[in-house]
C-alpha cells in the first residue's frame, strides 16, 4: 500500500507534466497563428485558463459535487451500520481521519468519494445501495472508495481534468479564430514558416483535445482497477466487492444529478446505461463492470495486490498489468481471504433502516406506541395530538417535531 501510493504519485506527476506540455505546445502554436510572434502570449493564455479551472476545482470542487448529487450529511445515529462499516475500513486502511458520510436519496445503487487529501474527505452512498447490499458487500464498496481517497485519485483526476479542459477550450478558440477571423489577414501572411506553423497548429487543435481526453479516461479506468484491488485487500474478501458490483450492474435505475467531472469517482459509471456498463470500451471512465467482477472472482483465496495483478492479466489477457514492479516487490506478504461475516439483517430490515433514516432527515417525528407501532409524524402536522392507527391510543405531538 505504501509503495503503491508513492508509485502512483510518481506516475501522476509524470502524466500531469506531459499533459501540461501538450497545453504549452497548443497554446504556443495557436498564439503564433493568431499573430506571428504572439506564441508566448498564447502559452500564457493557456496557463491562465488552466489556473482558473484548477482554482475553481480545488477550492469548491467537493461542495459542488456533493451539492449536485443532492447528498445530505448524516451522523452515526442515522445509520449505525453504514458508519461502523466506514470506521472498520478506516482501521483496515490506516486512514486516521474518518471521512464525512453523506447519503443520496436515490434508487440507483452507487457511491462516490471526494476530497483532495486524507483529511476532510467525504463519502456519499445512495439509499438504493444501502437497501441492496449486505454488510460484506457494503464493506467492499466503502473499501473501494477509501482507496480512492488514500491514493489521492480525486486530486489527481481534478488536476488532469482541469488541464484537459484548458486544452479543449483553447483548441476550440483556435478553431473559431481560423474559421472566422483569419480571412481578413490572409494577404499579409505569405511566408513559408507561417504555413508550417499553421499546419502544426491545425493538427494540435484537432489532436490535442482528443489525446488529453483519452489520457484522462485511461487514467480514470486504471484508478478503478487500483481501487478494486485495494478494496479487496482492505477487506480481505474480494467476493464482497464482486457481488456488490454484480448487484449494482443488475439495477436498471439510473442516477440523476451526476456531474461529468465527478463520474470517475463513482464505484460504477453513473452515466452509462445498464447495457453499456457491460461493454468493453476505451471511451469510458470505468472498465466494463463484468470484467471487474471476473477479475475479483478469480483471485481465489488470496487478497493481495500481487494476486489481483495475476488475476487481471489472466482475465484481460493484457501484457501490461496495473501495478508497477516496485509495488509487487514490497507486497510479498500473503493476505489470505477471510470467511464471510453473517449479516443478521434481512432485505426488509435494510429497507426499513434506510427509509427510517431518510424520514428522519426530512424532519419526521418518530413516536413509539405501546402497541408496538411506531408513528411517523410529518413535520407539517399541525395537530396537538395524534391517534395510533393500530390501537387508537392518543399521543401528544412534540412541536416543533423533534426526532427521537
Amino acid at each position, binding site marked *: 500500500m505504501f509503495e503503491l501510493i508513492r508509485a502512483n504519485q510518481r506516475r501522476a506527476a509524470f502524466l500531469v507534466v506531459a499533459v501540461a506540455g501538450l497545453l504549452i505546445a497548443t497554446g504556443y502554436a495557436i498564439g503564433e497563428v493568431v499573430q506571428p510572434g504572439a506564441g508566448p502570449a498564447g502559452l500564457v493564455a493557456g496557463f491562465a485558463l488552466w489556473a482558473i479551472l484548477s482554482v475553481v476545482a480545488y477550492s469548491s470542487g467537493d461542495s459542488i459535487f456533493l451539492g449536485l448529487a443532492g447528498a445530505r450529511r448524516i451522523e452515526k445515529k442515522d445509520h449505525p451500520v453504514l458508519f461502523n462499516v466506514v470506521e472498520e475500513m478506516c482501521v483496515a486502511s*490506516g486512514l486516521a481521519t474518518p471521512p464525512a458520510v453523506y447519503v443520496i436519496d436515490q434508487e440507483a445503487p452507487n457511491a462516490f468519494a471526494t476530497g483532495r487529501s486524507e483529511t476532510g474527505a467525504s463519502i456519499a452512498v445512495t439509499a438504493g445501495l444501502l437497501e441492496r447490499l449486505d454488510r460484506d458487500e457494503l464493506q467492499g464498496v466503502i473499501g473501494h472508495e477509501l482507496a480512492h481517497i488514500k491514493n489521492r485519485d480525486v486530486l489527481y483526476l481534478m488536476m488532469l481534468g482541469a488541464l484537459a479542459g484548458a486544452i479543449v477550450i483553447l483548441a476550440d478558440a483556435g478553431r473559431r479564430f481560423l474559421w472566422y477571423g483569419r480571412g481578413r489577414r490572409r494577404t499579409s501572411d505569405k511566408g513559408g514558416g507561417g504555413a508550417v506553423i499553421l499546419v502544426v497548429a491545425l493538427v494540435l487543435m484537432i489532436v490535442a483535445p482528443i489525446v488529453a481526453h483519452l489520457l484522462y479516461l485511461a487514467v480514470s479506468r486504471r484508478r478503478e482497477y487500483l481501487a478494486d484491488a485495494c478494496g479487496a485487500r482492505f477487506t480481505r474478501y474480494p467476493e464482497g466487492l464482486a457481488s456488490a458490483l454484480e448487484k449494482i450492474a443488475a439495477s436498471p435505475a439510473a442516477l440523476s444529478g451526476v456531474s461529468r467531472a465527478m463520474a470517475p469517482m463513482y464505484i460504477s459509471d453513473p452515466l452509462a446505461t445498464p447495457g453499456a456498463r457491460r461493454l468493453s470500451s476505451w471511451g469510458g471512465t470505468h472498465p466494463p463492470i463484468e470484467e471487474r467482477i471476473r477479475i475479483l472472482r478469480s483471485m481465489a483465496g488470496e487478497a493481495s495486490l500481487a494476486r489481483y495483478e495475476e488475476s487481471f492479466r489472466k482475465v484481460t489477457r493484457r501484457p501490461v498489468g496495473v501495478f508497477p514492479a516496485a509495488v509487487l516487490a514490497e507486497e510479498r506478504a500473503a493476505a489470505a481471504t477471510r470467511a464471510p461475516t453473517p449479516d443478521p439483517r*434481512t432485505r426488509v430490515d435494510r429497507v426499513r433502516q434506510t427509509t427510517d433514516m431518510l424520514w428522519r432527515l426530512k424532519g419526521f417525528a418518530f413516536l413509539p406506541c405501546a402497541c408496538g407501532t411506531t408513528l411517523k409524524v410529518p413535520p407539517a402536522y399541525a395537530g396537538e395530538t395524534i391517534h395510533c392507527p393500530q390501537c387508537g391510543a392518543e399521543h401528544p405531538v412534540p412541536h416543533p417535531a423533534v426526532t427521537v
Partner: protein
Amino acid sequence: MLVLLVLLALAAILVIFVIGVYNGLVRARNDVKNGWSQIDVQLKRRHDLIPNLVETVRGYMTHERGTLEAVTKARQQAISVSGDVADRMKAENMLSQTLRSLFAVAESYPDLKANQNFLALQEEVTSTENKIGFARQYYNDTAMRLKNKVEMFPSNIFASMFGFSPEPFFEVETAAERQAPQIKF
C-alpha cells in the same frame, strides 16, 4: 577545484539520500506504533461495551446465569492481565469466545431479539470485533513494511546503524477467530 566540487556534490547527494532513508524508517516505525495503539483502542472499546450488554441481556436471560458470568469474568480477566502480549491476546480471545456463545444463546430469546437496545449493542459489538480484526491486519501490514525496510538493501545498512529492528507479528489467526460472533436469524 573541480574535483573538490564534484566530491562536495556527491557528499550532498549521499546526505540527502541518508536523510530520506532515515525518515522512511522512522515513518515505518511510527506506523507500527500507530497500528498497535489502534488495536488497544478497539480492545478498550469492547471492554467498555460489555457491562451495558450484560445489563440489557440479564432481564431476558433468566436461565443463562453461567453464560453471563463467563462473559463478565472473561472481561475482568482481559482487563487485569498485564505484561506479556501473548497472555493478553489469549485473554482477549477467551472474551471473544464467551461473547460468541452469548450471542448464540440469545437466539432462543425472541423478546430479546426484538429489543432495540440489544440490537444496537449487538451491532456495536459485532463492529468492534471486526475493527479488532482489521486493526491486527493493519498492524501486521505495517510490521511487514518495517521488516522489509530493515532487511532489504540499501536501507538495511542504515537500519542497523540507527538501531531499527523489526517488530513481532501477530500469528495468523484461525478463520474462526477472524469471524464476528455467529448469529443466524
